[in-house]
């Protein structure tokens, strides 16, 4: 499991209130179920910014489809390997 996924997993579990959720690069809003609504998305973006000490522009995140896309974006903005 990549270092980024390891750090993302507790964020998703906290925001989605599900201690058992498993995320992979292929995970997307649909696969994470009804708990992944628009507010959960906003909260996850904010949580990721704080966890990795980065800032997203709206234009960077509007096109993200999967967790893999998010991992690649985080890797570009940090020194953490995807």
């Amino acid at each position: 499991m990549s270092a980024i996924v390891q750090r993302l997993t507790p964020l998703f579990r906290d925001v989605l209130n599900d201690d058992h959720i498993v995320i992979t690069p292929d995970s997307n809003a649909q696969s994470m179920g009804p708990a992944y609504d628009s507010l959960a998305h906003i909260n996850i973006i904010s949580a990721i910014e704080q966890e990795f000490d980065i800032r997203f522009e709206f234009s960077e995140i509007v096109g993200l489809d999967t967790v893999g896309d998010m991992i690649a974006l985080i890797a570009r903005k940090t020194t953490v390997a995807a």
Partner: protein
Amino acid sequence: MNSYSWDQLHVGLAADFDVTVDDEMMARFFATTGDANPLHLDAEYANGRGFRSRVVYGLLTASFYSTLAGVHLPGRRCLLHGVKVDFNAPVYVGDRLRVRGQIAHLSEAYRQIELACDITNQRAEVVSKARLRCGLDPHEERH
């Protein structure tokens, strides 16, 4: 009432206010919620549980976080997205509380702020801590 716009907000911006919990607040909270737990209504019962008097409802104390966000920071434009709250010590009727919040994070992408908040009593004891997530109503930006 404050009415911060997004451009006026920054990490570290803070607000606070004081409030005293009284019997009328407790009665109104009970009437509204129907929470009849004797810990909040019966001093003798509360004594028996180890408290010096009946304990103020935790969510009555936490309701002041609503005032903090909706009136003080960010104020009028606030859309409260979420609250995570801990109750660290009991509050009693007559306690004078100071409710404080400070912006800990701004998420530009979706214009959400996160406030690190606490409530202390007249003895400077922390009775509650909370993290509040708030958006700003985009329609209100025009006013």
